[in-house]
């Protein structure tokens, strides 16, 4: 397996779990599936320590374990994706912060550290009153490891809780918002199995159930079999999915099925009324989640959000911030509708890509778009109407879509009653048409950021993610090439990408450059693996002088190359951190002494404080750079959802 990735994962694990776990992971990475005993042997670590290390790794789901049957030896193997995902924590917290605010980011940060968390334990960590003592009897069978793991985890989180005073209702509503937005998901029992074993189990179940003769060969049977497997897979997944209805704690406010969940607490607060008339312990009523619900962060969903953000940034480069913000809102409305990026169950026979892409209406976009943005400011001829910004939509929006990550301050400050009637209607129409103008601009652009469905006049819009993903990848490769080899090299690369295979003379004339300059660039880029040349001998003698070289740029290859380089760059950056720490060790150690800690101001000398600051800055810069490289990895590897390099 990719050595660069392995190295990176080991560094990441060492950084978060320490050397022992890293060593065990490294051994597993090298040898594949092992039992505890063979593992101890290979790693040359005493068995007891191996068990401790494995436990730590399993808590974070960095290692999968599975026994073929009851009583059979348990095998352990690494989980590449989760291991790599350690590098994505900051980016996810960042994203959640943007969309759901600080509290949410904090909670997600904690859940990320724990791997997964029981709601009850999480509530304890935030020092909230236990929401429900009674067992709700919901089938969230937590893995036995969980409890144990949480003990450690909570120790970590509890230090942070002092700074956040969150009410129980806030806690639960944030959690619910996160669950609904898909950032968090419910954890079922099957999450701990390696996918291949899961596949086997599903196949077995299908065979027993539907093919008692165990004959699944032949084209017809095969396709039936496949279909049945997908159906079951989906069912299992749905069983495991969070539902507003089923995962509610029994003493929480009861939601009737017909009750639209979106009319949640914000409204209640403003009006001082009681939702459904249920009130508990003098607190605002919020539907409480079952304490036994186990949640984790859905990385693929977060990756999708990262993709949206990246696309928004890309649009901003070409069309400016306002248009990009509109685009960002469109993308966010679509996120809920796109199946998870990593959905392998999507029907394969989708010749008609077009129709499988989800779409959103302009009003949906309007509902989550930041109302303070002056939509008229960046397009000529649009009214830059201030009244629009104070219009009604913002207000309505919050009531309906409070869970989509609108900044809290906004909704709180809007105390004015909803303007009704004519003006409200007119403002809304204006706002919608302004949004439409921005969307049209996005559509018109050569990158076709979005598309109106059907013909002109429809108010539904869709985004061709596969095509835009290719655009993003090209842009990322271009940025890398530009920064490394300069703009003339980029010109050559782009022309070769567009024109296909060309001879050096043709390159020179297309690029309007001197042939000797072109030759220098071509050779440099070839040396670095960016360009390739195909030899075309003019005769059978195959003399170099009688050979034509056709140059070309292979996007896929370069994408892979840069991905590997990014892994390596991340590993080197992470490895530099302890090196820097070593340089400042004396100061750091002094600052961490119990008698100094918390009183750094008085106990440390001026130069020491200076050094400490330098160290913090250095570490922060290094980590920030890792985050940015992770964003690159996400783009190069994960956005398409088609990557298979991490499947175990």
């Amino acid at each position, binding site marked *: 397996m990719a050595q660069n990735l392995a*190295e990176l994962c080991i560094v990441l694990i060492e950084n978060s779990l320490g050397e022992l776990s890293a060593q065990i992971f490294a051994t597993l990475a090298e040898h594949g599936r092992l039992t505890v005993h063979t593992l101890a042997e290979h790693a040359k670590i005493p068995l007891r320590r191996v068990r401790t290390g494995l436990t730590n790794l399993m808590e974070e789901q960095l290692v999968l374990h599975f026994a073929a049957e009851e009583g059979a030896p348990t095998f352990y193997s690494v989980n590449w994706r989760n291991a790599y995902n350690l590098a994505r924590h900051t980016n996810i917290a960042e994203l959640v912060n943007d969309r759901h605010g600080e509290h949410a980011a904090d909670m997600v940060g904690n859940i990320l550290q724990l791997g997964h968390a029981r709601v009850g334990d999480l509530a304890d960590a935030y020092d909230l009153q236990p929401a429900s003592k009674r067992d709700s009897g919901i089938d969230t069978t937590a893995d036995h490891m969980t409890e144990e793991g949480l003990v450690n985890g909570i120790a970590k989180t509890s230090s942070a809780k002092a700074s956040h005073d969150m009410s129980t209702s806030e806690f639960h509503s944030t959690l619910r918002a996160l669950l609904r937005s898909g950032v968090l998901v419910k954890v079922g029992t099957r999450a701990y199995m390696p996918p291949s074993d899961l596949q086997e189990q599903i196949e077995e179940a299908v065979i027993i159930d539907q093919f008692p003769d165990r004959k699944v060969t032949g084209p017809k049977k095969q396709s039936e079999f496949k279909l049945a497997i997908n159906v079951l897979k989906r069912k299992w997944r749905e069983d495991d999915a969070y539902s507003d209805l089923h995962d509610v704690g029994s003493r929480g406010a009861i939601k009737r099925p017909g009750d639209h969940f979106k009319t949640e607490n914000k409204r209640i607060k403003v009006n001082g009324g009681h939702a459904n008339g249920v009130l508990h312990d003098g607190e605002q009523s919020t539907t409480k989640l079952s304490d036994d619900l186990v949640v984790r962060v859905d990385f693929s969903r977060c990756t999708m959000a990262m993709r949206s953000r990246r696309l928004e940034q890309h649009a*901003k480069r070409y069309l400016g911030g306002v248009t990009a913000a509109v685009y960002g809102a469109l993308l966010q409305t679509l996120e809920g509708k796109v199946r998870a990026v990593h959905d392998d169950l999507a029907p394969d026979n989708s010749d008609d890509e077009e129709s499988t892409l989800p779409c959103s209406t302009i009003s949906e976009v309007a509902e989550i778009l930041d109302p303070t943005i002056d939509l008229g400011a960046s397009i000529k001829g649009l009214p830059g109407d201030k009244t629009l*910004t104070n219009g009604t939509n913002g207000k309505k929006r919050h009531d309906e879509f409070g869970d989509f990550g609108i900044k809290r301050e906004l909704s709180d400050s809007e105390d004015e009653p909803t303007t009704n009637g004519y003006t409200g209607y007119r403002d809304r129409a204006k706002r919608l048409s302004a949004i439409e103008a921005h969307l049209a601009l996005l559509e*018109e652009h*050569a990158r076709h950021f979005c598309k109106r469905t059907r013909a002109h006049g429809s108010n539904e819009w869709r985004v061709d993610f596969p095509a835009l993903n290719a655009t993003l990848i090209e842009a990322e490769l271009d*940025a890398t090439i530009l920064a490394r080899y300069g703009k003339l090299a980029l010109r050559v690369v782009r022309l070769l990408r567009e024109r296909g295979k060309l001879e050096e003379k043709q390159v020179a004339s297309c690029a*309007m450059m001197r042939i000797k300059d072109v030759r220098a660039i071509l050779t440099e880029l070839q040396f670095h693996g960016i360009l390739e040349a195909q030899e075309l001998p003019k005769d059978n003698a195959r003399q170099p002088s009688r050979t034509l070289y056709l140059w070309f740029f292979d996007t896929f290859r370069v994408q892979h190359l840069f991905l590997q380089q990014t892994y390596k760059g991340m590993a080197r950056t992470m490895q530099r951190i302890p090196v820097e720490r070593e340089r400042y060790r004396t100061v750091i150690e002094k600052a961490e002494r119990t008698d100094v800690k918390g009183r750094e101001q008085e106990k440390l000398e001026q130069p020491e404080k200076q050094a400490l600051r330098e160290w913090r800055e250095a570490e922060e*810069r290094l980590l920030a750079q890792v985050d940015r490289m992770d964003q690159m990895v996400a783009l190069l590897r994960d956005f398409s959802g088609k990557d298979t390099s991490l499947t175990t």
Partner: protein
Amino acid sequence: MATLTKLSGPGDALYTELCKAAQNSIEGLRKVFFQSDIEQLATDTARDKKELLPLVQELVNHSLLRLSKLDRALCWSTRPRDAATAISRLNADEKLVYSYVEDAHQKGIWLRELKKRTNINPNAVTKAMNKLENAHLIKSVKNIRAPAQKTYMLYHLVPSDDVTGGSFFDAGDLDESLIDELSNLIIFHVRMQSWADTKTKRIKRETTPPPLTAADDPDTAGGKKRKRGPTTDIEDSAATTRKYRLSAYDTDDPTIEIITQLALPAYSRAYPSAEAIHSFITTTDAIRASKAAQLTVAEIQNVVDVLVWDDKLEKIGDGYRTVRGIKFRPPGFLGDEEAEDGDKVEGNGLTQVPCGRCPVFELCGEGGPVNAGSCVYWGRWLKEGA
């Protein structure tokens, strides 16, 4: 060579007929006639092949027709009368040399190649060439593909763009200043038609407003806090440019002018196409008229393509728009403005760390000759903040 008898009447008629046909065809003098073509044209002058053949032979003898082979079939092409007269006076060597040069058409032929192919004494070739050149039958031109080699072609031919390299070559060398001038002009022209500007005066604040790249740059904050205060919104919303200032004392002016680049509503207009740009370029006075007249639409398209690859123009529909934030040099401005050219490379996560540009990247690793600990680049990076 023996003096030729005067051209016979039917021969002359046939020649005139062929010339007319050649002139009417798009190939002009390069038009070749196969036997069947001539038979068709010659229905007036010769009734059958038997009569035709001597006529054709006569014209060939008079050098008015040139015999060559195409796909193993014989074919003929016409020569101008005066050239034919001149050729008639040549000796065998010279005729041979001439025919090779003639075959090379607008592409021309290298002297060396000529010597090799004719298979006659190189000195004789040189002599023959001199004579032909003096007789204005052939000329030497500079070939951009092989500047050191002498290339010859018939005197009356205009060298093909393959040979001269087109308008952007000046005596065989790439005319970079012309390309640069033209690029700037195109950007200017397209920019004026593709974005609207608004100017707002505002009082200069203590802190200078962030330069374009920082305000605009999607990645500056690396996706860190994206605070979007309503006040910074306008600045953030579109490319803002501080007005170009020429006089130094302007800096005392407490107000600065901010130019905001506004998009034009989508689908509201046709952005300039290569043809439109071409017609602007050829009618403007900014480019020397003789140069401008030469420029073809294809050449303009080439410049435009390069500008697209350089991320200066973007294609919208069938036309082009400047990429947001792209500026042009004010016409007549001569200073060096490369720095402001939007050339500041910002890179990405990988290229910002030293490893992304490291010369020993492949060698570096734990336990290797270099590693993250022994690395000198990190130290520099951390110190310099870049």
